[in-house]
């Protein structure tokens, strides 16, 4: 297995991508807002990077500029130090996996996979070898002579991936490749793609609007909004220490509580007044004492117990309602700092807290994050 892997796609330590001030404007009018503006990013060889953002934020456009399907209005894209501007898409060292899979309907699975190799004018014997090994890697061995329309969605997805991988690209590009699959299959494919990518070490750029997908798969996530980068960081950093309220809100569920800063400490923490108590919380570096701020509290970083506050560090609230998810239960709680969504994992189903009940609330201060409130 390992041997065949090597012959199909050998791990390479190339595929670094540098985007410099990449901008895309559709149409010639300067009044139309840029679809992508001043996009700056260094992608390491072998990295799995995800473009995450709401629909229309420019993810696909950026990916297609890297692939060469869209021209860039200004800026530059380099691969391994090579400027891509004048390189046509079919000459770029990358392969793309499409949302619709884009399998050639008139060719069998084997012919689909062989397509690019034949264009490379590879000897027939090597083509046959490479196809066998990639079919084995992708668990497609029995399906080689079927037509694409005789395959399930997940199998089609695998063929599309195999067809891209067999080209030994330096870079793999994915545009929402899992969005046509059902939820179970989607999770399984996430895992498969990620494992394969790790094993082969191919630089991968993955576009999605699904934050779970981005969290599960990425080395780093690029969060985008309105054609601009909001943050580039590892998933845990994006989740725990988002750059902005937009990022915090887009990635995972977020509570924003009204707080008052009492003191800034030199170690990057701040003392704030929230839920009627004073706590010390980690803070974004842009927070100033006099500016408006919001405290990001993830629903799972809150402890609640029935009854009045049991310590000086606990606040008070009233349960407005609850939603049961099986593995967790979510309570909506009214507090003096705003409404708070609280998620309790593995709840005791016999002892759910009834609506209207007064609860004592304790924040896990280290898991909260103080952010400047730019909307205020």
């Amino acid at each position, binding site marked *: 297995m390992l041997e065949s892997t090597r012959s199909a796609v050998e791990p390479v330590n190339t595929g670094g991508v540098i985007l410099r001030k990449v901008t895309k404007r559709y149409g010639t009018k300067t009044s139309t807002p840029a679809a992508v503006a001043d996009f700056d990013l260094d992608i390491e060889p072998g990295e799995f990077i995800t473009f995450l953002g709401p629909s229309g934020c420019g993810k696909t456009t950026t990916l297609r500029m890297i692939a060469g399907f869209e021209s860039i209005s200004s800026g530059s894209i380099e691969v391994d130090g090579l400027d891509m501007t004048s390189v*046509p898409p*079919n000459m770029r060292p990358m392969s793309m996996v499409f949302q619709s899979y884009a399998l050639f309907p008139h060719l069998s699975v084997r012919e689909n996979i062989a397509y690019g190799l034949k264009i490379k004018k590879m000897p027939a014997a090597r083509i046959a070898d490479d196809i066998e090994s990639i079919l084995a890697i992708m668990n497609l061995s029995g399906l080689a002579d079927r037509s694409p329309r005789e395959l399930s969605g997940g199998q089609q997805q695998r063929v599309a991936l195999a067809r891209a991988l067999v080209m030994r690209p330096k870079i793999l590009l994915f545009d929402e490749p899992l969005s046509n699959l059902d939820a179970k299959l989607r999770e399984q494919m996430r895992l498969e793609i990620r494992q394969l990518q790790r094993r082969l070490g191919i630089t991968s750029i993955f576009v999605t609007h699904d934050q779970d997908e981005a969290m599960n798969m990425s080395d780093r996530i690029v969060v985008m909004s309105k054609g601009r980068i909001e943050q580039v960081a590892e998933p845990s950093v994006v989740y725990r220490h988002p750059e902005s309220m937009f990022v915090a809100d887009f990635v995972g569920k977020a509570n924003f509580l009204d707080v008052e800063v009492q003191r800034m400490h030199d170690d990057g923490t701040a003392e704030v007044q929230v839920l009627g108590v004073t706590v010390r919380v980690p803070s974004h570096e842009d927070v100033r004492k006099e500016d408006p701020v919001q405290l990001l509290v993830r629903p799972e970083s809150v402890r609640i117990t029935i009854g009045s506050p049991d310590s000086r560090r606990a606040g008070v609230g009233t349960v407005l309602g609850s939603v049961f998810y099986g593995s967790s239960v979510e309570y909506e709680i009214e507090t003096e700092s705003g409404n708070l969504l609280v998620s309790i994992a593995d709840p005791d189903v016999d002892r759910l807290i009834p609506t209207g009940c007064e609860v004592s609330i304790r924040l896990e201060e280290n898991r909260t994050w103080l952010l400047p409130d730019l909307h205020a």
Partner: protein
Amino acid sequence: MSAPTTESRAQFRRGPEARRMSRARGVRDDVTSKVIVGIIVLILLLLLGLPLSQLVTRALGPDGREVLLGFFTDPNHRAVLANSLMLGAIVGVTGTAVGFIVAFTQVRVKFRGKRALHLIALIPIVSPPFAVATAAITLFGRNGYISSNLLGIQGDIYGLHGLVFVYTLSFFPVAYMNFKGMLENLDPSLEEAASGLGAGKLKILLTVTFPMLLPGFAASFLVLFVEGIADLSNPLVLGGDYAVLSTRAYFAMTGDFNIGAGAAYSLMLVLPALLVFLVQRYWLNRKKVTAVTGKPSGRMQAISAPSVRIPSLILTAGIVAVIALVYLTVILGGFQRVPGVNNELTLDHFEFVLTGIGSQAMRDTITLALIAAPVAGVLGMLIGWLVTRKLKRFAGLLDFAGMLGTAFPGTVLGIGYAIAFLVPTTVLGIEILPPLAGGAAAFGGAIAIVMVFTVRSLPPGQRTGIAALSQIDSSIDEASTSLGAGSATTFRRVTLPLIRPAFATALTFATARSMTSLSPIIFLTTPEIKILTSQILAEVDNGRYGNAFAYCTVLVIIVLLLITLVNFLLRKVVHRGNQFDA
């Protein structure tokens, strides 16, 4: 990232070389598209630009100017123009009416035998010119079966009324197909809404359905109007004293050898045809989109209300009876010694057609049509591909140029070709092409005939290509590009195989059209090359109707065999064969 690893530095060192390579390949790919555009533009210039510019030049020369001025000063010339316009207008109305009645009955009225009606309505499309006209003479002429044998009168079929009868029967299928498509795509919810408001069937038709079809009426009228003024074969046989532009052009060219006058008459034919083409392209097509929703929201109910059903069925039955009568005359006439006069049965006519000159004509016609079809097909597909995939700003222009073959009447093309290609083609005094038409040219002038077939077959191929290509998702093309294929490779290995079935169907009909057309090639036939339709004309001219009928029957059988063969082959390749049913 900023500190490059050894590997990536090694990559970087290989950089400039790799860069040069990829640039060169990239430029080549870009050049491929540009070269294809260049070649196509040259071909279109040769096939359309040159003949038409020569035609205009000759029409504006001394002989031509005399004729053109005549349209302002000479009542005779004006009468010819008025005759043509009148004929076109009347046929526009009658053909549209008949086409609509048949289409309406076919789509909306409840009855058995829809498939048979459809096939009968399409017969005139594949039938050669003269079939209807000659049959009409045999039936209604001076010694006609019906006029003299049944009614005992001296029939007079020559002139305007005869032409209207023949044209209506020959051209109504165009209107029929047009209305059939529209009626099938009408959104039934509109009629349902009206009937929910308590309107009766007839009232709904008059107030809801017909108004929505108005653009269809306009389009049919215009198309038939152009067919009516452009046709040459029927006025040659049936015109009598009724002179029209196309016959005038023909006699000027072949009788008086006055090329300038022929060109001038043709120019007068071009103007209305071009105008109609432009109106259809830029005005009606847009209207149609708003009038008919693409996705019907349900099945339209067949009408069984007697107030609608009975008149529709009676009218349609009458039309079917006339068609049947005409074509039975054609088939039977091929076996009669002198159709209508001496009805003794004989096989002489078929013997003449199948063994004598006829067999050479069949061979030549089929060969030339089959050479032109793939050329036209490839050209049409390439234009379609450039228009949908490659060009942005000039896509509309190229599409327009390719479709011009339908805008110019066959007579005009034929005369243009005769003018342009009987002599060597020169550019700036240097001869770049020998004569392509006429007996002295290579292959007995066959090249010019193939060229004119190509121009006429290009539009259907192009239209089909564009329709088929717009159904293929662009990500399929991009996937191929992403796997390393350049534009040309993608076209050859992905696009072409995917559009092949639609392509073959379009080509079949184009071939059939080439084989049954007369007006463009009558100016280009030579003693060396025999074309079926011009052989039929010769037989009709000499009053040998039996031979003409035998020719028609054989030609129809060839065309039907061709269509059946292609259908059969496609059915084997494509699983859903019924989508190619005519």
